[in-house]
């Protein structure tokens, strides 16, 4: 099953199960979704529940939040999360804080979803990961699916959740296929929010990753295995709440940690994981924590530069070896 079909079927099933669920955003209806995630939903649920909006993010995100105040369960699609910057005030100030400010009177059951992070060759304004941005805000939940199972289970969980959820997909994963079990295909399937998944068990080094980087981390683990390093790969799935206990339990076992993300390094998800491990498991660490992240630059267009701007499998392999005190080639100087 592709991630696209997983997301589409999750939306379809939740819309079918609950008449309060609706989808709004740019091109979600007649165009069938800019990335075809909402394909067929307009035909099935009609224009009252699948709403094409003008290209005015602050307006339609605010309308979505207001509808959630009233008790509907809107799914707001951003064509990409880069455009959510036009509406970030409604995500942070209108959605995340209302339940707190009203002492529980105004809950906000809304999902903001769309592709996040770098695509291919689209330059600086269309290639950015917002996981760390949104995950820094209490009141929000931030989910980052990797596989088809994640996409289905987490999107269904997000729609059913009574709080505002930022759901960060990845354009480059939409077309990727993953094997899924019968359980995953069942319409009752749902994943817990705030729980990471150990994608691969290992004992020598822990690698944390989310979204597309989980695939890279798994590839790195295969390469490392050939060299006798048995890596444990954690798919974070949820950035807020962050599953600190799974991460720390793993580090206490492997005594080594590599964090991987596409986002900028400063104040990133890796930085938070690193802090958590230092706070909770300092005595268990046998090596400095390694952080693999997007380069600290706006994303360049040229293919060779773009490649340098984001983590590659070999970066993860190298960092893991460093953490295991295996000799590595001297890094090239830029």
């Amino acid at each position, binding site marked *: 099953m592709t991630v696209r079909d997983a997301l589409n079927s999750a939306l379809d099933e939740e819309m079918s199960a609950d008449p309060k669920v*609706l989808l709004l955003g740019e091109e979600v209806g007649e165009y069938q979704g800019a990335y075809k995630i909402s394909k067929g939903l307009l035909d099935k649920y009609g224009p*009252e529940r699948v*709403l094409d*909006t*003008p290209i*005015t993010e*602050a*307006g*339609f*995100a*605010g*309308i*979505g*939040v*207001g*509808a*959630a*105040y*009233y*008790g*509907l369960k809107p799914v707001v699609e951003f064509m990409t999360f880069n455009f959510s910057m036009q509406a970030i*005030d*409604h995500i942070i*100030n*209108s959605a995340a804080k*209302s*339940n*707190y*400010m*009203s*002492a*529980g*009177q*105004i*809950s906000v*059951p809304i999902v903001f979803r769309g592709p996040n992070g770098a695509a291919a060759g689209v330059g600086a304004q269309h290639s950015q990961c917002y996981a760390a941005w949104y995950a820094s805000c*209490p*009141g929000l*939940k931030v989910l980052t699916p990797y596989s088809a199972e994640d996409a289905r289970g987490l999107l269904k969980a997000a729609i059913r*959740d*009574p*709080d505002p959820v930022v759901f960060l997909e990845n354009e480059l994963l939409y077309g990727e296929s993953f094997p899924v079990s019968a359980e995953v295909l069942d319409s009752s399937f749902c994943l*817990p*929010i*705030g729980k990471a998944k150990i994608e691969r068990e290992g004992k020598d080094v822990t690698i944390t990753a989310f979204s597309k980087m989980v695939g890279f981390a798994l590839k790195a683990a295969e390469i490392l295995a050939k060299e006798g390093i048995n890596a444990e790969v954690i798919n974070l799935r949820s950035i807020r*709440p962050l599953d*600190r206990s799974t991460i720390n339990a793993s580090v206490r076992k492997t005594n080594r940690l590599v964090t991987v993300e596409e986002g900028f390094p400063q104040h990133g998800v890796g930085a938070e994981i690193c802090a958590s491990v230092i*706070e909770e498991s300092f005595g268990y660490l046998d090596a400095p924590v390694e952080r693999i992240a997007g380069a600290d630059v706006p994303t360049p267009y040229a293919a060779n530069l773009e490649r340098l701007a984001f983590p590659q499998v070999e970066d993860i392999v190298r960092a893991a070896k460093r953490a295991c005190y295996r000799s590595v080639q001297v890094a090239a100087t830029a």
Partner: protein
Amino acid sequence: SDTTLTIETSIPFTAHNCDAPSRAVETSPSELLTFYRDMAVMRRMEIAADSLYKSKLIRGFCHLYDGQEAVAIGMEAAINKKDCIITAYRDHCIFLGRGGNLVEVFAELMGRKDGCSKGKGGSMHFYKKDSGFYGGHGIVGAQVPLGCGLAFAQKYSKDENVTFALYGDGAANQGQLFEALNISALWDLPAILVCENNHYGMGTAEWRAAKSPAYYKRGDYVPGLKVDGMDVLAVKQACKFAKEHALKNGPLILEMDTYRYHGHSMSDPGSTYRTRDEISGVRQERDPIERIKKLLLSHEIATEKELKDTEKEVRKEVDEAIAKAKESPVPEPSDLFTNIYVKGYGVEAFGADRKEIRATLP
């Protein structure tokens, strides 16, 4: 006896892209008496908040509504509690109009447990969801798309109700207002945008911030009505008209020509950008409470003495509410971690020193 009275509005409505409602407003002696009393409570409450602020019992921002009471009261007279209201931070009197009580107001202002937001919202974040009041918003203009979203949900749910989204003349220039209005018009949402034009966005006069300060016309393709916002009967008539219009035809803009006597907030004496003569002129000629008082006297519904007695009662009511609010305890330290989520999944949240203070979210 409660007979029907028909009273003409102070001035005619000015309409944009629609036919103005009649100037003849139906009311009754008891309604006029209620208007008088309710506006007097609001006035007294805000003046008391001013003193509490000055004696440092209220912290932070505090935006007072005195002068603008006719908008809150007239609007309520035309609608019911299934209609929604959402506003910005000048929200104390809107909350009261929706049925909130004085103790909840003062307790919230003083950061106490019995406040309408249990002391966690403060002056700018009052809510009363059970009677259709959705806050209390601190970011200028953001409440307008939120209000259109409430209207969307009313239409989606097939509830025959409307939403009044209030904003000031300052917020009237915000881009997101036009985004939300466009969508509301495209989707025929029962949204009424109420511009409370008190003529100054903080200290910036309307004409210094808006190329066209005719806010009722600023919706272009959306009809609008300019209303004397100091005349509670005109406000009532306009809101009744607006509700009927919105249910049939979609959004409408109501520009309420009003005035705030206080400065923008407590840090603003309100006198550097306008003259004292201007303020006292409005008080003498257009005050919403005085207008109703004159009607009550001229129609012999009440005597001077009865109105004086009402004022005394109101004063007492406000003083008692303050005393009661002062007795309310401050929130428990553990309330720091409540209501962050509806469903917290038992994850940990941290205090400033996470080794010292952490909580499990319910």
